[in-house]
């Protein structure tokens, strides 16, 4: 285990001493991210580049809060971002989503308003039966994670503002009653007045988009898409660089020298793979750090981000090993790796949002670690956490495992690690 680690660390050390490689691994994606930022108007306060997200609204509530949420999606402020259509049937809406007709369906169930604002005369009545909590459902289209994520972020923000307003108001009323400043007979009247205010200000979710403080919560920062997009694209270069080092070590004689040291073959190969993994993690980690510092990109849940980086690098490293296993010379790995980097970059959504691709292209894109990684980073940027990343992380881990398995079989056949 120690030797495995030492070989991995040595490869990382060598990477940091290769200026040309560092330029390509770190500077190039950083500059391209800046370029994409300018092209899309991120730095000039222009549009987010994401628009007309198709969403189906099913308002079964018909109460004040349900109507407010429906109005929010139809508001002028969200007219560029959203393209809502109304429906009465949750089943029909789900079918639309399943057939890739929209990014998400927002199903506001009957009784949603009543579950938050009780009927008159029951608010402070200990004998009154309080309504059960009813939750809004966002039925998301998995093939359109960005749009679905934005819809979900808007709904979540709306609900949290309503909840926040209710909790704050009720706490105040109860506090006033306990201190004797408010007569219990007047409590419900005061509370309703507060709820009316909530209803008036529930459009804070709407105003979030124009309000500076709240903008980050709802508005999608395009750099949170392009920065990981570029990082993932150049990650493919890094993993092929790492794979190339296996063949380069064979050519320069250090691989045979490792093989005649008292080190197991599995330790040597494992160490090389670990080196690739370290390089990828270092590259993506540095790019994310730089984007945070220089562009104030908000990446979301740190735990989820770390898990996603590790999974994305694992998946990409599998591709790096596969390319190496098929190649005969370091130059072949370099040229194939660069070609695959570009193909996966385009196919995986590093330049163009995957939701703008036709369905079959979106399906093909799933062979790339870029697509899965971008799904995950988008989910995080829109407020998701580690628990929302099960699908992309599982897919990336599976991808890495399968590709490593194929690569090992190929290595055995080619005899690169054999005697």
């Amino acid at each position, binding site marked *: 285990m*120690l030797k495995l680690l030492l070989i991995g660390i*040595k490869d990382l050390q060598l990477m940091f001493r290769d200026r040309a490689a560092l330029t390509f691994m770190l500077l190039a994606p950083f500059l391209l991210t800046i370029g994409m930022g300018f092209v899309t108007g991120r730095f000039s306060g222009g549009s987010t580049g994401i628009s007309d997200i198709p969403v189906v609204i099913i308002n079964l509530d018909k109460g004040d809060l349900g109507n407010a949420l429906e109005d929010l999606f139809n508001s002028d402020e969200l007219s560029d971002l959203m393209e809502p259509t109304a429906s009465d049937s949750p089943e029909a809406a789900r079918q639309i989503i399943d057939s890739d007709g929209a990014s998400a369906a927002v199903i506001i169930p009957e009784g949603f308003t009543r579950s938050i604002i009780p009927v008159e005369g029951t608010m402070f009545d200990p004998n009154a039966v309080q309504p059960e909590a009813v939750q809004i459902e966002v039925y998301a289209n998995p093939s359109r994670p960005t749009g679905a994520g934005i819809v979900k972020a808007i709904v979540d923000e709306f609900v949290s503002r309503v909840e926040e307003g209710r909790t704050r108001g009720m706490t105040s009323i109860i506090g006033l009653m306990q201190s004797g400043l408010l007569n219990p007979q007047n409590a419900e009247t005061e509370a309703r007045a507060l709820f009316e205010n909530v209803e008036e200000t529930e459009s804070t979710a709407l105003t979030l988009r124009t309000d500076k403080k709240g903008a980050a919560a709802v508005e999608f920062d395009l750099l949170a898409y392009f920065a990981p997009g570029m990082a993932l694209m150049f990650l493919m270069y890094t993993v092929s660089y790492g794979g190339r080092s296996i063949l380069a070590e064979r050519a320069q004689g250090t691989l045979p020298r490792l093989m*005649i040291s008292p080190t197991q073959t599995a330790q040597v190969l494992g160490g090389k793979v670990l080196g690739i993994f370290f390089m990828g993690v270092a590259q993506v980690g540095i790019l994310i750090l730089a984007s945070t510092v220089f562009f104030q990109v908000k990446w979301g849940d740190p735990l989820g981000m770390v898990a996603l980086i590790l999974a994305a690098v694992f998946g990409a490293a599998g591709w790096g090993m596969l390319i190496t296993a098929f190649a005969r010379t370091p130059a072949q790995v370099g040229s194939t790796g660069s070609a695959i980097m570009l193909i996966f970059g385009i196919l995986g959504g590093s330049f163009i949002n995957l939701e703008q691709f036709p369905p079959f292209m979106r399906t093909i894109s799933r062979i790339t670690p870029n697509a899965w990684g971008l799904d995950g980073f988008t989910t995080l940027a829109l407020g998701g956490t580690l628990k929302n990343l099960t699908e992309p992380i599982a897919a990336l881990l599976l991808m890495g495992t399968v590709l490593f398995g194929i690569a090992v079989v190929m290595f055995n056949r080619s005899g690169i690690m054999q005697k």
Partner: protein
Amino acid sequence: MPPILEVQNLAKNYGNFAAVKGISFDIKEGEIFSLLGPNGAGKTTTISMLSTLYTPTAGDATIGGHSITKDPMAVKQMIGVVPQEIALYEDLTARENLVFWGQMYGLGGKSLNNRVDEVLEQIGLADKAKNRVKTYSGGMKRRVNIGVGLLHKPRLLFMDEPTVGIDPQSRRAILDTVKDLNKQGMTVLYTTHYMEEAQELSDRVGIIDHGELIALGTQKELTRQVGETETLILHIGENDDPEALAKSLNGVPDVLEAIATDHEVSVVANEAEEVLAAVVTKANERGIKIHSIDIREPNLEAVFLHLTGRALRD
């Protein structure tokens, strides 16, 4: 002294090509044994099998009683290998290289640092230890390459043509290092195609050609095979025909054998001076101008020539 290395019918085939054809020899503890042979003779393949890098097609060898095929890890612990090519990380410093390779041989902590310091002193690079290897001359790289093989103080050191492509000064330093290591008790298997190196270093020599061990013994034993003869080396002009001259000299009295090589004719006789005049006369008769003449006493080159009909460098 018991043998530290015993090789039995070791063979390696690549498809239909037999790189090593069932060779057998042994090396006693504390000796310097040279495998002498031209390029492509099978020296590197033999070392690669003995160092467990290649699996033999047939045969086996034991090092310190451990089979190279059945117990390779035990063998790896006992041997040090200096490969023919410079197998170092050029972007690491000499010290970093030595530390890394030391770790691969299971060294660590303070003992590793002390050992690295010792080796750096031994190879004469202590003052340049913090420079990256890519800034070194070829000779300096060769010395680090050797240093890596010494880190874990192996009982048996394999050195595969360690002086190829370096300046005479570095070559001298490497040969002296080999002698010093041997004085300290290290057994050395040294491969070379330079007859002078084998002659200077070796207790015993194995001559290998086309994958076969064609002669084996001490230098005295080997030179005895060609008799107590001397060799006249005639250096002739580029446009002259060495084959024709060799053919005509084969009929001269007291000439035992005349062999043409590249712009040279080697004339073997019991006493070189006795045939010298006749040889010069024969050359003049054929209009061949002799630029210079060397007289060589029996040596390994003559042995190789005698056994194969070719010079070592051919």
